[in-house]
């Protein structure tokens, strides 16, 4: 949990993959509704950069995604989490984990409010 998705940066997101995450979801406030004005917009740009990097290095861009939710949308959060986990299961273990001997981790989740 972070004070704001604006705190997360590319190096940390990539670190998660280095540490064996098969997927990373970043969950922030609704756009235009950031508690810290613009943190989620910054986060979106950083996630996009990581998306592009993952694409280029063949880890797969779809392993990272940013979601936007309001605090009252618990069921939506669950739906998003399930959707994302489903997607990651479909993609299977990240090439990193395959290279390390195929141990499969559940999708990592990072949450912020």
């Amino acid at each position, binding site marked *: 949990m972070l004070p704001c998705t604006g705190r997360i940066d590319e190096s940390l997101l990539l670190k998660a993959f*280095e540490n064996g995450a098969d997927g990373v979801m970043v969950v922030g406030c609704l756009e235009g509704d950031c508690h810290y004005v613009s943190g989620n917009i910054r986060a979106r740009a950083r996630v996009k950069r990581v998306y592009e990097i993952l694409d280029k290095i063949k880890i797969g861009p779809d392993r990272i995604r940013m979601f936007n939710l309001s605090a009252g949308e618990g069921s939506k959060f669950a739906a998003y989490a399930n959707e994302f986990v489903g997607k990651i299961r479909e993609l299977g273990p990240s090439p990193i984990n395959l290279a390390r001997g195929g141990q499969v981790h559940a999708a990592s989740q990072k949450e912020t409010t």
Partner: protein
Amino acid sequence: MITGTPKPIEEILEMLEPYDNIILAGCHGCVTVCRVGGEKEVQVLASTLRLAREAAGRKIAITEISLERQCDPEYVEKLRPYVSDHQAVLSIACGAGIQFLAEKYAITPVLPGINTGFLGVTERQGEWAERCQGCGDCVLHLTGGICPVTRCAKSLFHGPCGGSSQGICEVGKDVKCGWQLIIDRLKALNQLENYGKLKPYKGWHTSRDGGPRRILREDMI
């Protein structure tokens, strides 16, 4: 400051193909300010490379180091204790820094991680633009403080050419006509008479065309 852009990751990976153990060297100078070569980029690139290599089935060890500047010998010297333990150095400083590293560590390959750009300014966060080509013979006092060499796509001294349309250069929609800017500025300065003078041919010998340049300040040696 000196600006730059990250090299495409595929290109870096290709460069690193022969190596399994490298130093990734950042620089706290210009490249930090223009956000291609600072500590954060060192971390991002190191992670990226490790991931890419591990995914490809061949791990790479990366030692992450950021030097104060790669363009001063004392700082560059700080890398020495590490260099011999590594097969190569990937530098994300400007071309000057990269070369300086290469000169100092003669038997270790030094590779560029960024494409060095230009001498520029920050237009706004995330946008940089060229302002100077370092030609060695400044005429800004005649051109309203706007450099015709840098800002005109053809480096004209008597622009604008016929390709100037509504302040935009023929080269592209995003390129402002440098001469339009000069004229606007001269007008604002009430110095339009400067325009009417035929300027002598520029001596390019003070620029790159004079060979690698050197500044010697005997008072400081």
